[in-house]
């Protein structure tokens, strides 16, 4: 963690003196507010570089001469320099640096004081992330950073969806890139959260532009921990707990369902399906496909070092069973971060991470469990799986039992680097950063027969392997120099990257049921095998200049040029840039006499960033397409003939997807740094790829040509306020609030392109992306009540087959027909605002914290409710005040087995507020008697509560931008209750 710097000292005034003989200086380092001793502060003599480390009582001793300068620093504190005098007993007080303008912030290819940052950069401390029982740091920052929306599912092993200041890319991956110690990746599930020192989110173009070509959807920089010279530190952290679904949906019991179904069939003149007098017990299918899952984490890390060498070793095991019986995810991760100061001007180092996971996958059966008839038992009396031929729904329990899907991964990630400082102020850094994945998957499908709608006549095995090796070679020079009032920080660098993917897969039939025989050799006949590969390369030159005048005025400019092998040769290069400035008002002379503001800074920036990963394989314009089907000329005695043709059209003009944006911000701290905050405005425009539909007659097999034909704008205001105070030595508390208002709108789409999406899988689509509306807006019929009579139907525009008791749809254009022209835009999943609230207190050994997250102003399409194929289970509330001839004024439509029309009836509010985490901990004092330095125990609840209007399982629905916010078979967010221990030796 690279917070540091500033000084404060006190003790004695330096007095003029001459060099004296060396003597032993001793002292204590303390926190300025609480007076608590600061452990592991590094104490260094500037003249010789000799150093010492404070112990657990904050004590240190060092041999020095009067007149020498002693620098004292500790992570999270503003450092200080003391000129030694004759008094050899020092008392050194450090101020917390958190949130101040002197806090050191990682800005990509370097760091800067917060005051020098002209873009929007949010920082989250590693310990805030490690405190939550989640797999990835991406989820750990949920609710903590304004402008960053995290949408997670509860599925074990999954990484949540991250949106930095709205969604820009329409297609593919709109997640930011993650930069882990210099390795650029899209997947950080391999990183143990306890190994993370800090996370920085670069939110606007002027912060991102140094990563310009890759930064179109934002940049998240993750810095892992390193050792510090001094005494060895050992930390053991562990927690264990269980997971349950946070909320459920109340379904109809067997009798209600049967009566509804009989009534629906009666309208269609079909015989009743049930005799209400002979129904057996109700099956609660949701309960049958969920259970209490166990979650566990064990983490041990050892760090320390000398003046020449620092080391950090971390090892951890994380296990998540999830809430679906039979699924689990187990990850072991090991980290070695070392540095070697070979000479005062030369440092070598490495950050290496090895991770392995194993997982058992199960299908998310929440849709089948939702639709399956409650009259069907899990198993019949004879032990066979229950079914009904009324429904094309698989027995969800059988499906879980019969799924054998195992995956594993070995991942090696890290870097080695060398830093050379040939002259004062200049640092040359070379690094080799790499990331290797090796993934295996094996799926076995046994022979089974439940009924003709759920059977498998022949066993099969499929096996696959994907591996990739990615590297970036990065060489850069940074020059930091202060000339009087002028300060220059310049960076110039060059990098080349290459990613090589390889994969193979094979499948075969008739494999025995014993797991030890699940190999392709054991099947009969020939295996169907395939393999593939891909290479992606990039070459980039980048530069940045930060000029600071008198600590008051800051100019920042960056320029980057990138080439990518994703594009046709003529369009491979893109130029990205940013320009920005900041004014540190609090450094002005006229602010010297006020006491309200401790810091006040205004910033503004503009820049252009890009993205080359939205659509892969755009480069080859004239590619032969191997057809998936062969042709069987000559009957069974002749080998089938392979087929190929040209059937894909590509846009020859494709190049970088670009985002241009402006950021304005005001940062402040006041009342002795007790209140701090940040208000920002942003406005960015993404020139996005969309699937352009061409007529089939062009000869494009799927009718889709990817082209940059849409402009998507995200603009908004975000703010953050934090209050922290220590009212006494024993009591401190903090409270924080952040909120982001975002407007997402499609400014322009070329021509009359059809960007319809959101297929429900029953022939209906419910989203449409058009200029003037947010991406993926729900596009549905408007209901305005229920037909009460046949007369009413006959005298109005209606859909074919409408009966009394059905929804009335508004004939928007008055043409007496109900068709697509009558659909309206009924909101989208893009929230109008989202927010986080966090707080806590510490009283003596006790600590308490809470963390809330919410969003509002968006809509959800209750897809699972809107997909009915007939005779499906219903929600319990469906029959409340349902229309029937006996209840002619009912407000809910009649019982029906018709496929529902997409309508406003299924569009629900997406507003929610969720308690992310509540933790209560206790730190024991006087633990030395047990030969340990520190001991804390804690109990924590993750996602225990949610307030939502939405009637489904969860309002948090990760998904593609064009069709997000449709709940079909989501893995719900889960609640975790756990207990843990942190021990330090």
């Amino acid at each position: 963690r690279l917070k540091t710097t500033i000084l404060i000292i006190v003790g004695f005034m330096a007095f003029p003196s001459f060099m004296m003989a060396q003597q032993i200086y001793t002292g204590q380092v303390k926190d300025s507010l609480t007076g608590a001793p600061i452990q592991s502060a590094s104490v260094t003599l500037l003249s010789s570089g000799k150093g010492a480390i404070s112990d657990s009582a904050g004590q240190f001793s060092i041999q020095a001469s009067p007149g020498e300068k002693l620098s004292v620093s500790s992570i999270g504190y503003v450092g200080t320099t003391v000129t030694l005098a004759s008094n050899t007993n020092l008392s050194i007080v450090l101020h917390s640096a958190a949130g101040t303008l002197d806090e050191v912030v990682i800005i990509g290819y370097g760091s800067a004081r917060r005051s020098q940052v002209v873009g929007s950069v949010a920082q989250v401390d590693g310990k805030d992330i490690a405190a939550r029982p989640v797999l990835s740091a991406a989820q750990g920052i949920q609710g903590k950073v304004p402008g960053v929306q995290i949408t997670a599912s509860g599925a074990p092993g999954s990484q949540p969806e991250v949106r930095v200041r709205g969604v820009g890319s329409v297609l593919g991956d709109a997640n930011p890139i993650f930069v882990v110690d210099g390795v650029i990746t899209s997947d950080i599930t391999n990183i143990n959260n306890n190994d993370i020192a800090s996370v920085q989110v670069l939110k606007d173009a002027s912060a991102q532009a140094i990563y310009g070509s890759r930064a179109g959807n934002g940049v998240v920089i993750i810095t892992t921990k390193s050792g510090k010279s001094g005494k060895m530190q050992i930390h053991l952290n562990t927690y264990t707990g269980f997971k349950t679904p946070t909320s459920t949906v109340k379904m109809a019991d067997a009798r209600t369902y049967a009566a509804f179904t009989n009534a629906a069939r009666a309208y269609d003149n079909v015989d009743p399906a049930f005799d209400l007098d002979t129904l057996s017990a109700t099956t609660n299918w949701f309960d049958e496909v969920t259970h209490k899952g166990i979650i566990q984490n064990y983490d041990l890390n050892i760090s320390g070092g000398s003046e020449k060498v620092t080391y950090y070793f971390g090892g951890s095991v994380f296990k998540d069973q999830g809430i679906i019986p039979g699924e689990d995810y187990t990850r072991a991760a090991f980290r070695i971060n070392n540095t070697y100061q070979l000479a005062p001007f030369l440092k070598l180092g490495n950050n290496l991470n090895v991770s392995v996971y194993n997982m058992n996958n199960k299908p998310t059966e929440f849709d089948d469990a939702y639709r399956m008839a409650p009259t069907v038992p899990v198993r019949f009396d004879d032990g066979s799986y229950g079914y009904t031929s009324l429904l094309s729904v698989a027995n969800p329990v059988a499906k879980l039992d019969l799924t054998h899907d195992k995956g594993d991964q070995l991942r090696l990630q890290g870097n080695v680097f060398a830093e050379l400082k040939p002259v004062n102020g200049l640092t040359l850094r070379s690094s080799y950063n790499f990331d290797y994945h090796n993934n295996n998957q094996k799926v076995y499908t046994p022979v089974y027969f439940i009924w003709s709608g759920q059977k498998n006549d022949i066993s099969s095995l499929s096996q696959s392997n994907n591996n990739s090796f990615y590297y970036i070679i990065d060489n850069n020079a940074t020059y930091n120099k202060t000339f009087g009032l002028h300060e220059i920080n310049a960076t110039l660098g060059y990098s080349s990257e290459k990613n090589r993917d390889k994969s193979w897969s094979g499948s075969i039939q008739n494999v025995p049921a014993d797991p030890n025989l699940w190999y392709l050799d054991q099947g009969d006949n020939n295996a169907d095998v395939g393999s593939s590969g891909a290479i992606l390369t990039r070459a980039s030159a980048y530069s940045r200049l930060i000029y600071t005048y008198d600590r008051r005025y800051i100019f920042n400019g960056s320029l980057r040029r990138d080439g990518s092998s994703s594009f046709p040769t003529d369009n491979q290069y893109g130029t990205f840039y940013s320009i920005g400035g900041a004014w540190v008002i609090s450094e002005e002379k006229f602010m010297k006499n006020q006491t309200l503001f401790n810091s006040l800074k205004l910033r503004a920036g503009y820049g252009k960033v890009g993205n080359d990963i939205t659509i892969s394989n755009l480069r080859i314009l004239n590619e032969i397409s191997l057809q998936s089907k062969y042709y069987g000329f000559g009957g069974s005695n002749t080998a089938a003939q392979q087929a190929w043709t040209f059937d894909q059209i590509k846009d020859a003009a494709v190049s970088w997807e670009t985002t241009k944006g402006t950021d304005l911000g005001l940062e402040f701290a006041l009342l002795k740094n007790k209140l701090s905050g940040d208000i920002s405005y942003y406005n960015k425009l993404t020139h996005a790829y969309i699937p352009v539909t061409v007529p089939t007659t062009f000869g494009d097999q799927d009718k889709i040509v990817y082209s940059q034909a849409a402009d998507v704008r995200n603009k908004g205001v975000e703010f953050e306020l934090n209050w922290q105070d220590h009212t006494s030595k024993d009591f401190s508390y903090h409270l924080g609030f952040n909120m982001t208002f975002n407007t997402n709108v499609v400014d322009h789409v070329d021509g009359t392109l059809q960007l319809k999406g959101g297929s429900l899988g029953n022939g209906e689509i419910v989203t449409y992306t058009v200029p003037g509306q947010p991406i993926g807006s729900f596009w549905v019929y408007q209901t305005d009540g229920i037909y009460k009579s046949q007369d009413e139907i006959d005298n109005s525009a209606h859909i074919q087959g409408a009966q009394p008791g059905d929804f009335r749809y508004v004939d928007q254009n008055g043409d007496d027909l109900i068709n697509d022209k009558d659909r309206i835009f009924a909101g989208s999943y893009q929230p109008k605002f989202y927010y986080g609230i966090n707080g806590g207190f510490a009283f003596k050994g006790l600590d308490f914290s809470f963390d809330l997250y919410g969003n509002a102003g968006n809509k959800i399409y209750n897809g699972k409710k809107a997909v009915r194929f007939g005779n499906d289970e219903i929600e319990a509330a469906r029959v409340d005040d349902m229309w029937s001839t006996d209840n002619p004024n009912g407000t809910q439509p009649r019982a029906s087995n018709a496929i529902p029309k997409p309508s406003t009836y299924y569009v629900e509010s997406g507003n929610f507020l969720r308690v992310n985490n509540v933790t209560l901990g206790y730190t024991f004092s006087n633990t030395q008697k047990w030969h340990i330095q520190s001991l804390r125990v804690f109990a924590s609840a993750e996602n225990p509560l949610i307030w939502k209007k939405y009637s489904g399982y969860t309002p948090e629905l990760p998904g593609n931008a064009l069709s997000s916010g449709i709940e079909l078979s989501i893995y719900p967010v889960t609640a975790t209750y756990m207990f843990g221990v942190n021990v330090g030796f």
Partner: protein
Amino acid sequence: SKSYLNPTPQNTVQQNDSIYTDPAGAAKFLAACYTNLLQWNESSFSWLGLTSITSDDADKGSDPGDLGGDKDQMDALTYSATTGSVAEGWTGNYNGVSNCNQAILNIGLYTQLDAGLKNRYIAEAKFLRAYYYFNLVRMFGDVPLIDTVLNSENPDDVTKAATRVPEADIYAFIEKDLKEAMSVLPTNDNQAAADVGHATKGAAAGLLAKVSLYEKNYQQAYDLSSGIMQGSYGTYGLVDDYSTIWREIGENSKESLFEVQSKIGVPDAAVQQYTAVQGIRAGSFKRITEAGTVSVSAYSGWGFNVPSQDLDNAYEAGDKRKKATIIHIGDTLFDGVILVSAANPRYNYKAYVSVFDESYDGDGDNTNKNIRLLRMGDIVLINAEAANELGNTATAVSSLNLIRHRAGLGNTTASGQQGLRTAIWKERRVELAMECDRFFDLIRTGQAATVFSALGKTFTTGKNEHFPVPQVEIDATEGVTTQNPGY
């Protein structure tokens, strides 16, 4: 550097001169014209919806709530420009046209390919292009005529892709392609065993005979059908046992002029789910074995496209074709399977696969069921109809009786041109039942409005002769492609 940013594309063949050196590549371009026949959009669920479920021969089937996307609309003739099956019919056939245009262009570039083989390959591609256009013109009437590989950057080609040309021009183009194919392709007698499945002279002649019937060019239909029956275009004839035509033992027989080859195993060379969508739904089966009658698991599927009560009633007493076309509950099938119960009362026997007596590997989606696209039963009835229209009553009666005798029926009792005409149409229905011919035949013969009206369905004259042009195609051309009347 430039080469660093241009790595050799992996697992991708890029078009350049080198791909035209190995003649094996030409066979692959040709094969793509055929593999389109295996697609869902071309020959499977969409096709069954457009040409069979629409007709009076078949109902949607399956569970009442399972609509198969939009098959309820197909059954009720209420489809619109946004109905998926309609769009898939357009896509499936134009994909075929594109593959044929690519084959014709690219096969021509193979300099080391034997000239005779090159001509044959190109002729086969033209035969298939004609087949795809025949489907398009029957479904949509006026359609864009794409006879070359288009360049989407060329404004003339963009116009061509969007502009519908009159039906008559499409028919003229089909005739031209088929005549060129006929002049080059070998007869089935001269075809190597390993080439079975490739289009032959007989296939081209047969398809042209059928096309001629739609054009009401009865002389040409008569000449070609007579020629085929007399052996001028290869060796063909009616097989003795009607019930074997659609079974594995009837594959590529003398009955068959052209059939889609569906092959099980690795690699995948089967028609996509043609039998699965029509398979018996929720069936329970028994089978007589040495151990007595036991419950068994027979081939089953989704239960769509089921024979209608109306078709069931259409057979004369004693017609062997009824039990060879329709599976009823309680029937014992050719492989000894007894259908005890199922979700629907009737199923399409012609789509039934025996898991006991035929090649079956457990993969119900990809089965060994060839689709008979053109067979002698059709040709003989074309001959009868053309002869009757030309006033050649004796030939009409004798051809009609050939079909009736095989079905176990006596001579026709119809007489007079109109009487015979009706009898031949009736015979076409039962002979070709569930073979995707009926809906187009009703329109061709002008019977559609009357027939559907009797069944309580609305067939609007001036509208329902064609399907709507898919809205997605109209939108993709920004409205340049026009809609059919009434939609």
